[in-house]
């Protein structure tokens, strides 16, 4: 019986140390891992395709004046599906391998805001618009004028801290 225990001990010593040294040494993900979706703003044309396909509806496109379009992303609820990178016509969005997204600042750190310069018509100094009001309605509905956070209208009282 002691011999069998000894054999077991030797067997379990054979593989040596298997634990990753992760927080002290980097361990990059392999394969097609999708991490933080990064925007290369120099390429973005402000079409709003990403906002139209986002399943978590975390991208808002808003025209704040004649030639500025604002894109806000609340990446706190991003599910890293990669649809935005897939539909982007200019390949401005790339799914990076960044996964170390933890923070103590809460949702603030996962927020990003981009101001996109929109070229206007030389004659009328307005951005291009669909020809008729009906066409405007028929456009895919990506122009949300407000973006909701999860739990914004929660009827429940949060627990109070001392």
């Amino acid at each position, binding site marked *: 019986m002691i011999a069998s225990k000894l054999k077991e001990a030797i067997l379990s010593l054979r593989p040596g140390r298997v634990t990753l040294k992760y927080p002290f040494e980097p361990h990059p993900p392999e394969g097609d891992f999708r991490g933080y979706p990064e925007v290369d*703003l120099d390429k973005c044309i402000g079409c709003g395709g990403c906002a139209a396909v986002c*399943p978590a509806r975390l991208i808002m496109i808003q025209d704040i004046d004649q030639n500025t379009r604002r894109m806000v992303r609340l990446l706190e*609820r*991003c*599910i890293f599906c990669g649809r935005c990178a897939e539909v982007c016509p200019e390949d401005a969005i790339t799914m990076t391998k960044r996964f170390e997204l933890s923070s*103590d600042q809460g949702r603030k750190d*996962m927020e990003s805001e981009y101001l996109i310069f929109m070229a206007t018509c030389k004659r009328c100094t307005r951005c291009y618009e669909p020809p008729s009001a009906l066409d405007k309605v028929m456009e895919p509905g990506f122009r949300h004028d407000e973006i909701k956070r999860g739990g914004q209208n929660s009827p429940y009282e949060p627990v109070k801290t001392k």
Partner: protein
Amino acid sequence: MFKELCAKSFPKSLWVYHCNVGACNGCDIEVIDVLTPYYDAERFGIKLVASPRHADVLLVCGPVTRQVVPALKRLYEAVPDPKLVIAIGSCAVGGGIWFDSYNIVGGADTIIPVDYYIPGCPPRPEAILHGVAVALGLAEKEIESVHLKQLPDRPESVPVEVE
């Protein structure tokens, strides 16, 4: 000040209680993965306990559903002071893709105060370890909010000052 207090009151091992408040089990499996010998969170003294009354840290996975709200409040009050709450996964951080669902209240921080956030769907075991390391002060956080602006006369975009 709260951080200093935490550093003083948690000098040794942290006992964690893991609670699922409506998750799809993806994050739960990753949490269990972190406790296996390959990732081995027990190096840092993390130990899973069976009762919230033994715990220092609450791990919250999943969007808070309407039915679980009173249970989550009771759970939070059952953990003795001082306590930490870590939200794991996009659902617990901001409500996930169910943020405006009829039966979802929102992220964990709509009900209980959350100290550390680990987004991901689900977060990699390394990401959870990184979150633990940030909480213990072994690593720096690597994420911050982005504010950029395009300029008409310059090819490259510039950062915007935010107050």
